[in-house]
């Protein structure tokens, strides 16, 4: 009996001790929650007028606020990684910004895995709170991610800071950020560049092999016949089959706007997500244009002109197969990012000794086919990725304004700090000192010599690859909304040609949708759409059956989402 009593007492002690632990956890959560809700309510109750009025007070408070440490979270778009001179970038940024602010500042960069960025950020925010070492002060977000986060209360409304930023006088593309403001004038993210988009690249050698030129490709039928020729007419000249017309990272990238940019010729006027059409929000996935697009993809898949690896390939796998040293199982067409990526793809083909005789003319850019021009008007220019600042919810904007001043205002200073973000660290990624170097120094066929005089701006060899010249850091000098004023320009003709081609042939992507029901069901919708898309393309179900299943499962939710979006 005593044993039982003792057991009960021990069990009770355990429960009480656990409950005590739990209670302290509850307090933390509650504090975190209240902090979060207070920030929500504070942002909700603050109107534009009062923001303006408060701006001067906040700026004054920010001047008094000493930001000693800045923790930023970035994805793979910061190309100065830890293996590629990030330490030097940090040190030079701290020196430049510290001088400007008048006090030292410690920059802490957390660079997350690019492919799981969204999930890791959400876990990071959920498992830490403002003031914790891990909690980010500022982060990069894609447009889709930003739209979902802007109503959470986690992000700081930077409209006032943006309007009063020093770089405003030099902004050449004001609409990029103005278009991101909410109906009531709030701005939760800042885009230092415009979005950019994808264009279709074709291997010149394969065009030559099948006796075609890019001028022959005007319509979808022309494009389709080209893919057939690339698949069946031995474009690599090895005498056997194995090649494919086209590869992409997925038949459609349904988890990230603008969804259709990796296979625009097949998707044409379709947009498999929520978008505004004639002023009203619609679900593009259920439209006839999407049904037609899925049927086109299914036919191409059945005809064997789409590389089957497309279904599960990530962008890295797709592009590596495209410029692979083994062209016998490669593809002739690849739709990918414009501008700098034209140079990167060309360099990688060179590195793999593909079409060396063609030099920088290895790839030719395909102007949008008729069906794309007749629907969207051109290739899609995506909504720009943004920088966001976390709101600590303390009712004062001092910390947030200080972060804006240190990070975002300096990012486009036109000079020293902007150069760091654009090209990287001085004498690591770029230099103005006289020097000579060679890439592929040991290979007489591929060796390229570079020689620069004192004072001449130039990019250096990549810190992690002496056979390649560094290209850029986070900001693309051609896409930036306020250009550099110090005259530092990397005049790579191929990059310039690529950017000019894209800007000539692009149209802005539809604005991403955001509402509570969509946020709550985003993953389920995306997952189902991916599943159905892949089943249709593989020929296991028809496009109409896919639509029926989608409507049956998500019809009510879609209606609710559309009602919320159209009520905004």
């Amino acid at each position, binding site marked *: 009996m*005593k044993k039982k009593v*003792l057991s009960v007492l021990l069990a009770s002690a355990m429960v009480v001790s656990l409950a005590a632990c739990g209670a302290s956890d509850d307090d933390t959560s509650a504090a975190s929650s209240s902090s979060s809700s207070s920030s929500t309510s504070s942002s909700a109750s603050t109107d534009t007028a009062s923001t303006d009025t408060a701006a001067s007070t906040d700026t004054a408070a920010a001047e008094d606020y000493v930001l000693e440490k800045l923790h930023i979270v970035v994805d793979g778009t910061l190309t100065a990684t830890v293996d590629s001179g990030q330490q030097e970038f940090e040190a030079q940024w701290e020196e430049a910004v510290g001088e400007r602010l008048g006090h030292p500042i410690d920059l802490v960069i957390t660079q997350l895995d690019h492919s799981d960025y969204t*999930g890791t950020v959400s876990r990071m925010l*959920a498992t830490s709170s403002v003031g914790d070492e891990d909690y980010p002060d500022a982060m990069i977000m894609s447009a889709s*991610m930003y739209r979902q986060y802007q109503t959470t209360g986690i992000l700081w409304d930077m409209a006032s800071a943006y309007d009063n930023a020093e770089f405003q006088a030099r902004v050449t593309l004001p609409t990029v950020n103005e278009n991101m403001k909410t109906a009531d004038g709030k701005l939760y993210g800042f885009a230092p560049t415009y979005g950019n988009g994808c264009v279709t690249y074709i291997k010149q050698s394969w065009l030559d092999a099948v006796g075609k030129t890019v001028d022959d490709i005007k319509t979808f039928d022309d494009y389709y016949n080209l893919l057939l020729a690339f698949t069946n007419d031995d474009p690599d000249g090895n005498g056997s089959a194995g090649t494919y017309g086209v590869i992409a990272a997925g038949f459609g990238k349904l988890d990230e706007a603008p969804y259709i940019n990796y296979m625009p010729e097949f998707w044409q006027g379709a947009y498999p997500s929520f978008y505004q059409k004639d002023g009203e929000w619609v679900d593009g996935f259920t439209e006839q244009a999407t049904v037609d697009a899925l049927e086109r993809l299914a036919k191409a898949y059945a005809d064997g002109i789409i590389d089957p690896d497309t*279904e599960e390939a990530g962008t890295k796998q797709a592009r590596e197969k495209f410029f692979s040293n083994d062209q016998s*199982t490669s593809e002739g067409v690849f739709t990918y990012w414009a501008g700098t990526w034209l140079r990167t793809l060309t360099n990688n083909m060179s590195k793999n000794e593909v079409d060396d005789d063609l030099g920088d003319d290895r790839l030719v850019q395909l102007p949008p086919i008729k069906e794309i021009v007749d629907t969207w008007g051109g290739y899609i220019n995506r909504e720009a990725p943004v920088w966001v600042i976390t709101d600590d919810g303390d009712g004062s904007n001092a910390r947030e304004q200080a972060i804006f001043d240190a990070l975002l205002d300096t990012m486009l200073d036109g000079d020293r700090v902007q150069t760091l973000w654009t090209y990287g660290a001085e004498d690591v990624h770029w230099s103005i000192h006289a020097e000579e170097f060679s890439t592929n120094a040991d290979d007489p066929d591929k060796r390229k010599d570079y020689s620069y005089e004192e004072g001449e701006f130039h990019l250096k060899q990549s810190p992690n690859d002496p056979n390649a010249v560094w290209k850029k850091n986070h900001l693309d000098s051609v896409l930036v909304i306020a250009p550099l004023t110090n005259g530092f320009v990397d005049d790579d003709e191929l990059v310039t040609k690529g950017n000019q081609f894209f800007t000539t042939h692009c149209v802005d992507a539809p604005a991403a949708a955001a509402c509570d029901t969509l946020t709550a069901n985003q993953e*389920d919708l995306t997952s189902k759409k991916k599943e159905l898309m892949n089943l249709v393309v*593989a020929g296991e179900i028809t496009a109409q059956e896919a639509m029926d299943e989608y409507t049956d499962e998500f019809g009510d939710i879609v209606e609710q989402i559309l009602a919320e979006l159209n009520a905004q």
Partner: protein
Amino acid sequence: MGKQKTVTTSSGQPIRKKPLSIRMWNSRGYYLMFLPVFIYVLIVYYWPMLGVRYAFYDYSLKNFEFIGLDNFKEMFATKDFWRAFFNTLQLSVIKLLITTFASVIISVFLNEMGNMVAKKTLQTVIYLPHFMSWAVVAAIFTLFLSKSSSGFVNETLKSWGVIEKSIDFMHSKAWWRPIYYMVNVWKETGWGTVIFLATLSGINPELYEAADIDGASRMQKIWNVTVPALANTILIVLILNLAKVMNLFESVFVMYNTRVYKVADVISTYIYREGFMTALPNYGYTTAVGLFKSLVGCVLVLVCNFASKKVRGRGII
């Protein structure tokens, strides 16, 4: 109040036990040694369990509020959840039956092998796949079964004239489950033979000698001596593994894809997608799904414990 048991000596004299507190004090050294383990168990195993309360909260980056059973209501109304639930049960149970059956067959064959060198070599070879990670196994079989020209199986079948067009084994709803079971048999059968071989080595040789005297053939000896001797072990292995049927993640995660969700998505992969693949996950919902999975697992453990008591006279917990 039940009747107190009286502890007696072998001659029947009652032993007067000292009070528990005194016995504890006398054994204080042992209790002191146990204390770090007790604290470790509390912190590492029980403290995290407090997180199950989030199953009753709307816990996202946007909200943190008590919502009672709403997460469970949402879960039970979600088709994808039920699909994952039934897939979990089906894949686990069939996998368990097939791998156990295969392990028994191979154990019996190994037991019959007279050449010890060949027997030991074969044992080593069939144990090896168990030590390979699931990621590697999935990569090997994906390549092996690939639809492309590098896919060994498709190319062989085509060269033999069995098929005209390559089969997309890993993306086919009809083929995915058979492939999954086959890969599991390949990876785990060898390891599964360990316990059966141990049982077989304990069979009294006199039983085989008696069967020889009776003129039994090799097959008759297997059927009438070996298999009955294994029956109890087979049952125990099945019961012990039945308790773990809800724990299915890695093997499915590395082999499935969007096209086979209908036949392959299991509860753990469903939770993973809901919790880790979305920008603003509702951790309350994913905790509710996880809690439900744990409860089902708990019930299965209790059922197995009951079955174990019936079969071998003692429980598994």
